[in-house]
Every structure is written in C-alpha cells, then in structure tokens.
C-alpha cells in the first residue's frame, strides 16, 4: 500500500503597514498591552471601518510578483463568530471577491524545482491576543493586534510532503520580505500558517478527508507536525477508521497533533457582504505605479549576479536569497572594484561570523561601506588576505573603521621588495639545515621558509611576493 500525501498551506502574513487595515491604530509590535487600540479596533457601538490603501498596495505587489490576477475592485465580507479577542463578533475578510487570484511560486525541495500554484490571496483583519496563562481562572485580552492587516495566501493542494511544505513557506517568506510587504519575523508572529493534510492511495483520483493543523509558526514545527499527521492518518485508515475533517493543534513538546475542542455548530460563519464597506477600487494609474515600484526579486538578482557581475551560481544563489545579504553585497560592491571578492568574503568569512553569533547581517557591526573598504584594501594590496581576516574580526567586535584599524595596528602589507628580499635572505642564512634538506629534494620545506618570513614580518608580507623572492633565492 503506497500512500500519497496532499498538502495545502494557508499562510497569514501580517502586512507591514504603519496603521491597521480599517483604523488609525498603530501596528507596532511589542507595545504595552491595549495601548494601540483605536475606538474602531475596540468595536465600540457606532464605530465604522475605513480601509487603509497601503494594505491594498502591498497585497497587489504580492499579486504582481506571483503573476496573479489582480481584482482592482475589492469587496469585503463579514465572518461571524464569538471569541474574546474578536471585538466586533465578526472578522472583516474577503470571501467572495479576493484581491488576488491565482498566481504561482517556484520552490526548491530535494534538489528539484517545482511550481506551486496559489488559489487566492485576500485581505482580512487580525484578531487580538488572548493570554491564558497569566491569571488564575481567567484569560486576559490584549487588543493591540486587533485590526492589523493580514494577507491570507492560500495554495492549491499541490504540495506532496513536509519538505516541500517548508520550502514553500520559505519561498513565500522570502518573497514577502523582498517585496517589503511583511517583515517575515516568525518569532513575532508576522507569519503564521495553517496546514491542510490529507492522504490517499497512490493512483486514487479522489482526495482523502483533510485535517487542518492550525497556527504553526516555525519551519521546524511545520515539518514535524506534517510528518506526525501523515503517520497518524495512515494509522487511522489502516485500522479501519476514517479520518475526521477537523481542526488540530500541534503540540511541539509531545510532537503530536490533537483535536481542537470546538462544537460543530460553531463552524457556520454566516458570511455576508459587509454593509459598512463600499467596494474599494484601485485605479489603473495606481496599478501602474505599483508595478513600477516593484523591487528586484531574488530570481532576477541571481541572474544579474551571474551574468553581469560574474559570480558563480552557488554564490549568486546564496546572496540573492536573503534581502539583507543582497543589500550588503550590492552596497559594499559600490565601494570597491572587486565585486567578486566581496561575494567570496560575504559567503565565506562573513557568513561564518553570522552563524557563530546567530544574527542577521543587519544586526552586525559591519556596515556596507566598511565591508567594501575592507575588500578594496585587499584588492589594492594594502593588506593581505590573512591580515584582512583579523581586521574583519576587529570590525565585527567594534564596528571601527577599517583604515583606522590598519593604521593603528600597523597592518599595512609590506610591499617594498628590497625589505622582503633582505628578510628572506636573513631567513635562508639562519636556517642552513633546512636549506640543505630542501635542495636535497624535500620540496615541502618551502612552506617552512615562507612561514618564517611571514613570522619575521608579523604576517604583513605580501605572500605572493614572498613566494617569488624565496623561489629566486633558493633556486
């Protein structure tokens, strides 16, 4: 019996507008509870929603970047249910006419490329937060988040396994951060996803009953939850039962999914068009302006790095995949002639430091100007590559200027051939045994002499020159 898995993802991305979808309340994260709550966010009697056009612009950017159909006339519906963090007792969403329809995203999983189609993406307001653990027998409600704009992105059920699901989520995250429509901060809840999982026998046309895994917000947990759920469903069917269509929560501690407590009747949301919100129209002119303001996307960057800058494929891929890396690369490259060297160091030494400290490049002390300068100093032979490593470490700690460090520490590479020749001669003369051994055939000893010269010069000798000079002297 071979089973096939069918997975669809519903991703909720918080749009990075300053104010909420229907009110002037601030969307800033981390504020003191209930300080960013406007009268409208509260759902007070008599208040009315007014749409934030920036949210539409951001949604449209997503649509354009995924080749989707843009509905320039958007209407809104009410989804009715009761929950403490839903102040009005309904959520304003787009059921019948979403702003974005269709579109697709390329993903890379298991070394192969796959296109995942998007069914729709629509705007809706986020709910507040219910805090369950602070008080005995009570739940606290913080409405700061209520009304924040969300873009709900629904994929076609074309994902076949957990790895693809993670790849898809990553691809969406990369895209929304590049487009500057969502900050992609998973820890802060800027992106959450619900996963629909079902299984069917290979070859079966009909899809199996699906379970919805709710509100998972880490790549690791998505993978684990899906794999657990697939196993669970297989066990259920093989034992003769059928999978129940239900919502399940993933428990990361126990690594299992369990059914959410909710009554069947509670699921009738009674959607109907929101009578307070007339349709919002985005004009052709606005659409054109949005098109023109789209930033360069990862794939475009990658191609450009390869064809225009001459990077190799793997470097290009790595740098273009992260907005902050790409920014660092592009800005630093304006400060030096050697963009390829910038890339090499970025992918190599800098990435190693980032991993060690577990930070993003934006959080480091390395500014693009300084980085560019560092590379330029290597390129113009002011310092050797080896010295540059220690300079980089210094900059990493202190953020000090590259030239200042080189000057203060006297790290300038010794270029003057006559000095090097003198030192090399001295080294050769002080090590007669090694000279004999070398001339006798022990070629590996050459590096001994190089090492000695470097030691004498405190690493400041230009390695290339040292090699040439020693070769002349010893041969």
């Amino acid at each position, binding site marked *: 019996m071979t089973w096939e898995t069918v997975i669809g993802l519903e991703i909720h991305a918080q749009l990075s507008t*300053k104010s909420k979808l229907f009110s*002037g309340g601030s969307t800033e994260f981390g504020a003191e509870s209930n300080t960013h709550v406007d009268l409208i966010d509260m759902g007070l009697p008599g208040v009315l929603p*007014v749409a934030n056009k920036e949210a539409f612009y951001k949604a449209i950017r997503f649509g354009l970047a995924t080749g989707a159909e843009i509905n320039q006339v958007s209407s809104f519906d009410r989804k009715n249910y009761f929950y403490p963090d839903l102040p009005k007792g309904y959520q304003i969403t787009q059921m019948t006419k979403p702003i974005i329809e269709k579109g697709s995203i390329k993903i890379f999983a298991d070394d192969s490329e796959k296109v995942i189609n998007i069914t729709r993406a629509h705007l809706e307001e986020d709910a507040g937060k219910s805090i369950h653990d602070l008080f005995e027998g*009570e739940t606290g409600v*913080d409405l700061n988040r209520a009304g924040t704009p969300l873009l709900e992105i629904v994929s076609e059920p074309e994902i076949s396994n957990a790895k693809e699901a993670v790849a898809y989520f990553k691809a969406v995250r990369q895209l929304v951060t590049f487009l500057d429509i969502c900050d992609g901060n998973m820890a802060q809840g800027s992106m959450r996803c619900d996963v629909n999982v079902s299984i069917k026998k290979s070859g079966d046309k009909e899809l199996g009953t699906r379970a919805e895994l709710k509100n998972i917000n880490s790549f690791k947990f998505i993978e684990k939850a899906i794999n657990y759920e697939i196993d669970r469903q297989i066990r259920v069917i093989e034992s003769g039962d059928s999978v129940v269509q239900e919502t399940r929560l993933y428990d990361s501690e126990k690594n299992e999914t369990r059914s959410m407590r909710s009554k069947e009747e509670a699921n009738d949301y009674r959607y109907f068009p929101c*009578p307070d919100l007339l*349709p919002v129209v985005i004009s052709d002119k606005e659409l054109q302006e949005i098109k023109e303001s789209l930033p360069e996307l990862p794939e475009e960057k990658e191609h450009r790095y390869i064809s225009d800058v001459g990077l190799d494929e793997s470097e290009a891929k790595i740098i273009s995949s992260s907005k902050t890396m790409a920014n660092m690369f592009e800005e630093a490259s304006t400060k030096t002639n050697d963009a390829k060297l910038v890339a090499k160091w970025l992918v190599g030494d800098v990435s190693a430091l980032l991993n060690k400290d577990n930070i993003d490049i934006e959080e480091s002390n390395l500014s693009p100007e300084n980085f560019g300068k560092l590379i330029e100093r290597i390129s113009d032979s002011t310092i050797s590559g080896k010295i540059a490593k220690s300079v980089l470490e210094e900059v990493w700690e202190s953020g000090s200027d590259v030239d200042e460090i080189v000057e203060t520490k006297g790290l300038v590479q010794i270029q003057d051939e006559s000095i090097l020749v003198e030192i090399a001669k001295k080294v050769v003369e002080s090590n007669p045994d090694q000279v004999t051994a070398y001339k006798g055939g022990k070629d590996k000893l050459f590096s001994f002499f190089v090492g000695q010269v470097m030691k004498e010069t405190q690493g400041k000798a230009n390695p290339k020159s040292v090699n040439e000079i020693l070769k002349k002297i010893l041969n």
Partner: protein
Amino acid sequence: MDKKTVTTISYLSRLKIDEEKEEKITNDLENIIKFVDQLNDIDTSDIEPLTNPLEKTAKTRDDIVTADNLKKELLEIAPSSNEDYFLVPRVVE
C-alpha cells in the same frame, strides 16, 4: 423551523431561550419565515443583489497612525479588567 433549528441558531447567536418561551419563539420564527417566503415567488434571475443603496465606491485612508493611547479609558468602561487586560473566564483551547 423545528426545535433543532431553533437550538442551532440560538447557539450561533449565543442566546438562550427560556423553556416557557420556547414554543412561542419557535412559532414566531416560523411565521416570520413563512411571511418572508413570498419573496421566492419573484423571478430574480440575473438581478445583482443590492448590498448598500449607494452605488459608489469607498474612499480609503492614508497609512498613518492617528489613534491615541486610550488604554485607561477603554479598560475603565470594561465590565471586568485589570490595569492591563480585559478579563474573561479562562478559555481552554
């Protein structure tokens, strides 16, 4: 409009009908539905539903923060709150 339907829509609306009023409410609702059923005699194929009598589109707002910090006033008018949160009986997920 049977008892089960009334129970379902009551729950959806978070309303409880007193037992002694149950029969009357069920009858009332049934009569009202019968009354509005006459709409089904009309042919409305190809008619676009009218949600709002204004046939126009919405004005939108610019993305600026205009709200003040209303924490104190809002928590004050709440039936149950502490200095930071609105409070409800503990919710179990």
